[in-house]
């Protein structure tokens, strides 16, 4: 069921139930103006009705460091989020595998709060675990090794000590390598591992789980130790805007084109 969030004004849809929106994997970059336009439209027309917006990683195609904030494109994106927050919608941003160098300066520019991965929240009375999703792809050991390296403080300070231009060049190289290896990897290992999901659910006392990263939007049910947990996977923004709308009574997939 799709939720029509863009009502013509004349239809007076208000009042709205308090609800929270989840998005991920927008991969915003200047080379994809259509997606950026979708996002700006979402931030202006859809998101203001929500009491909170959670961005669960890969908001940007890449993030070379907060000193890259001052480009017109980044200012435009951050400005839209900042305006959204000023209107009363709380914004939370989680690192993805692409934009894990996002830091406090970016958060401040967006009037948002950075979230740890994973983070457990109380969502209208239901415990809900939020994660980008890459930590669940344990079948891809090469990636997990890479992740462990680049999320370390040593690698981070070494990387950020380089001039911005040099960092961007390295990122380009890493992206090219990643695209190549994705073509070579089996589809199966690029999805989440069932064992990893169950372990995470057990560790956090069987919550509902929401994540992105795999670009495979769906609702899954996991049975563990007598509990049934919902796992909601967010869709990416390659062809259309995808969001999850959660209120006290339901979870709905939104598709906006």
């Amino acid at each position, binding site marked *: 069921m799709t939720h029509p969030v863009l009502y013509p004004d004349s*239809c*007076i*849809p*208000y*009042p709205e*139930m308090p609800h929270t929106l989840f998005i991920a994997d927008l991969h915003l970059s200047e080379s994809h103006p259509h997606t950026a336009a979708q996002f700006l439209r979402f931030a202006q027309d859809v998101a*203001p009705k929500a009491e909170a917006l959670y961005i669960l990683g890969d908001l940007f195609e890449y993030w070379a460091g907060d000193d890259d904030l001052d480009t017109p494109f980044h200012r435009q994106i951050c400005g839209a989020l900042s305006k959204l927050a000023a209107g*009363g919608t709380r914004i939370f941003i989680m690192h993805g595998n692409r934009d894990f160098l996002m830091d406090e300066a970016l958060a401040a520019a967006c009037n948002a709060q950075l979230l740890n991965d994973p983070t457990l929240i109380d969502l209208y009375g239901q415990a809900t675990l939020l994660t980008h999703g890459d930590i669940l792809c344990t079948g891809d050991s090469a990636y997990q090794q890479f992740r462990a390296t680049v999320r370390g403080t040593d690698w981070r300070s070494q990387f950020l000590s380089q001039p911005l231009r040099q960092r961007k060049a390295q990122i380009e190289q890493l992206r090219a390598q990643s695209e190549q290896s994705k073509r070579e990897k089996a589809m199966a290992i690029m999805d989440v591992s069932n064992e990893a999901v169950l372990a995470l659910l057990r560790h956090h006392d069987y919550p509902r789980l929401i994540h992105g990263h795999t670009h495979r939007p769906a609702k899954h049910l996991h049975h563990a130790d007598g509990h049934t947990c919902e796992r909601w996977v967010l869709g990416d923004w390659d062809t259309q805007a995808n969001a999850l709308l959660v209120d006290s009574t339901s979870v709905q997939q939104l598709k906006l084109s």
Partner: protein
Amino acid sequence: MKLIRIILASLLVALCILPAQAASLTKGKLKMVKIETNHGTFTLQLDAEKAPITTQNFLDYVNSGFYSNVVFHRVIPNFMIQGGGFEPGMKQKKTNDPIKNEAANGLKNDKYTIAMARTGDPHSGSSQFFINTKNNSFLDYPGQDGWGYCVFGKVVEGTDVIDAIAKVKTGSSGFHQDVPKEDVIIIKAEVLQ
């Protein structure tokens, strides 16, 4: 003697008029409206003192027969039932000019109160209203947008009818969500004296 009788008679007449005036003064602050639907009838008590513009606006629609054959087009369980804008088939009716938002009047969006629906523009309320089916305090002034939703009365009789409407099966109709699958129709709305 005749003069005394005249004075006494005038006093008697005056005494008869005064209580009636006092009664109508009290009655003037609270307006009673009966709404007959295909699920039963309920009575609204509107607060003309706390929400004068909103009450008068609603009464104008009632008195012009606007609400006859108008539906409750948006029903969300544990939230509210909304109507007053569409005829069956989701045909939107043309309304009067929008009114000022009077939400800062101290009245709360408690269960069974009636409030003005609107767009994101705080002063866009016209004919559409909603009846809270739960205490929705987040809608109270200042609300989430600094304005909130103006409560202008409550259901004083027939809350079972509101409960019945709140339970109807809903689905999508065009781009509208939460539309009752079988029309919930206001047959007639009238002001009670």
